[in-house]
């Protein structure tokens, strides 16, 4: 019960202090909207439906990694994160509370291009349960990557630089814009090591039935990435504490 009170209040604080602030709400709406418009204008021949998996994935990836990396680095530089580390709650509870806010923010970002697309096309053929599950798991893995970046960075600008160093290559290697089969041989193994590859493939399957892997394989891979990233992030925080 005590852990639950702490979890809820950390989540509530993060949502109130960071995610519901006007600059972040506008970022959460304007960024996916701009991406969507840009892609629609550039790819006049493609149908909106084909673009939707890429737009959703990009929105979640950018929303989650930025927010968590920046907010935690910000709290670490002001030493308020130390207050959380010193509270009698487990590191697991603390990490879950910190990433839950970002996951919700990422999911909110994901639905901006969907709502926008709803004005132009019929979305009734989409498998929504699979889409929601995929969006959730992309948000979880991206948030955990943001957490890992936050642990490594000392300053907010440093966190943003490291985030971009990971995000942009991921976008081009995950098969969203360039099919994995068209990638140079030496880059292909790298594609299979990215959680976004599997998340984006599930979205392709649920939205356009054009997936390369089975849903089962993708969900299993995303769960493996979730557990792996959570463990690595926890280890990184513990190691940082002892330095």
């Amino acid at each position, binding site marked *: 019960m*005590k852990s639950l*009170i*702490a979890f809820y209040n950390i989540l509530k604080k993060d949502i109130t202090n960071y995610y519901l602030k006007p600059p972040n709400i506008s970022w959460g709406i304007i960024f996916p909207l701009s991406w969507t418009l840009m892609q629609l204008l550039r790819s006049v021949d493609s149908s909106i439906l084909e673009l939707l998996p890429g737009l959703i994935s990009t929105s979640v990836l950018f929303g989650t990694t930025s927010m968590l990396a920046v907010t935690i680095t910000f709290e670490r530089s002001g030493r308020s994160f130390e*207050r959380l580390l010193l*509270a009698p*709650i487990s590191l697991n509870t603390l990490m879950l509370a910190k990433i839950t806010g970002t996951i919700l923010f990422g999911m909110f970002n994901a639905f901006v291009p969907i709502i926008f697309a709803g004005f132009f096309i019929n979305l009734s053929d989409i498998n929504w349960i699979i889409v929601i599950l995929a969006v959730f798991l992309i948000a979880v893995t991206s948030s955990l990557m943001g957490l890992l970046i936050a642990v490594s960075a000392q300053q907010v600008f440093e966190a943003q630089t490291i985030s971009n160093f990971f995000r942009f290559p991921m976008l081009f290697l995950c098969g969203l814009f360039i099919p994995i089969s068209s990638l140079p041989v030496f880059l292909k193994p790298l594609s299979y090591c990215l959680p976004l590859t599997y998340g984006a493939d599930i979205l392709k399957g649920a939205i356009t039935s054009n997936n390369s892997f089975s849903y089962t394989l993708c969900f299993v891979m995303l769960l493996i990435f979730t557990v792996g990233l959570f463990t690595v992030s926890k280890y990184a925080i513990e190691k940082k504490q*002892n330095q």
Partner: protein
Amino acid sequence: MICVKNLTKKYGNFTAVDDISFDVKKGEIFGFLGPNGAGKTSTINMMIGLLKPNSGKITINEIDVIKQAKKAQEIMGIVADESNLYNEMDGFANLCFCGALYGMGKKERESKARELLKLFRLQDAGNRPFKAYSKGMKRKLTIAAALIHSPEMLFLDEPTTGIDVESSRQIRELILQLKNQGTTIFITTHYIEEAERLCDRIAFIVQGKIVASGTVFQLMNNVSHSHNINLITNKDVQDYTTALQKRFKEITVTVKKPDELVIKTAKRIPLLPILKFLHEKDIEVYEAKEIHPSLEDVFVKLTGIETSVLQKEKGGF
């Protein structure tokens, strides 16, 4: 209450804390005094479970802090050397949030937050964002936040550094009030006067090692083996010092000012013969006072560090 044994912390080749041991008794204020980089913050960080030592043992109320940090943290109130609350939240919300971190229910934490705002004379600022607080107010609220869950043990890292005189005075009063209520307090400071005024026992730490520890009285006795008596007279006594020294072989006379001299002896002696001697020379003594060494003198003698160095490091008193 607290038992620290053979604690060592190294950062690469640098030994920040070097095999230190000490105890803190229940209900006392224990002061850790030393210059910057002496190992005070590393020690406190290990005691609160934020930093793992390379070797040694720390127990608080029989709880092994290294193995069961989270259990130990339940009974600790921790004030870092910076006021690290949330700028975006107001004073009341900050206190309530800190209560929630210790699993306190909504009603309980809200009532305790109101009580603490009153105790720290911050009621009027309770609904103002933390970022709008003055340095002194921020410090007070940070201490209040550490007390929200009524801890048995309070760790204060440099509680009055860089704040105004009035806030420092209030914080010192509150620390004494907490001690009277039975809270055990571990405090690190570089203000010698503060340590002397507040602490039941003090340890001096220099370059990671404890060079002396004990009560203020014990520390003073350790360095002072002589008795010094200051005499203030009605006229110039400089011409009589040789005669005085000749008449009383066991004393050493030093002239501080023309009408003020210091008599130093290895043991206590009766003053009347000296006063009579001076009276015969037509010199009247207006004041005679035994001079004790200050804690500052003790610190300088034991550590070889001038106290002005301590205060310059943190921006003055």
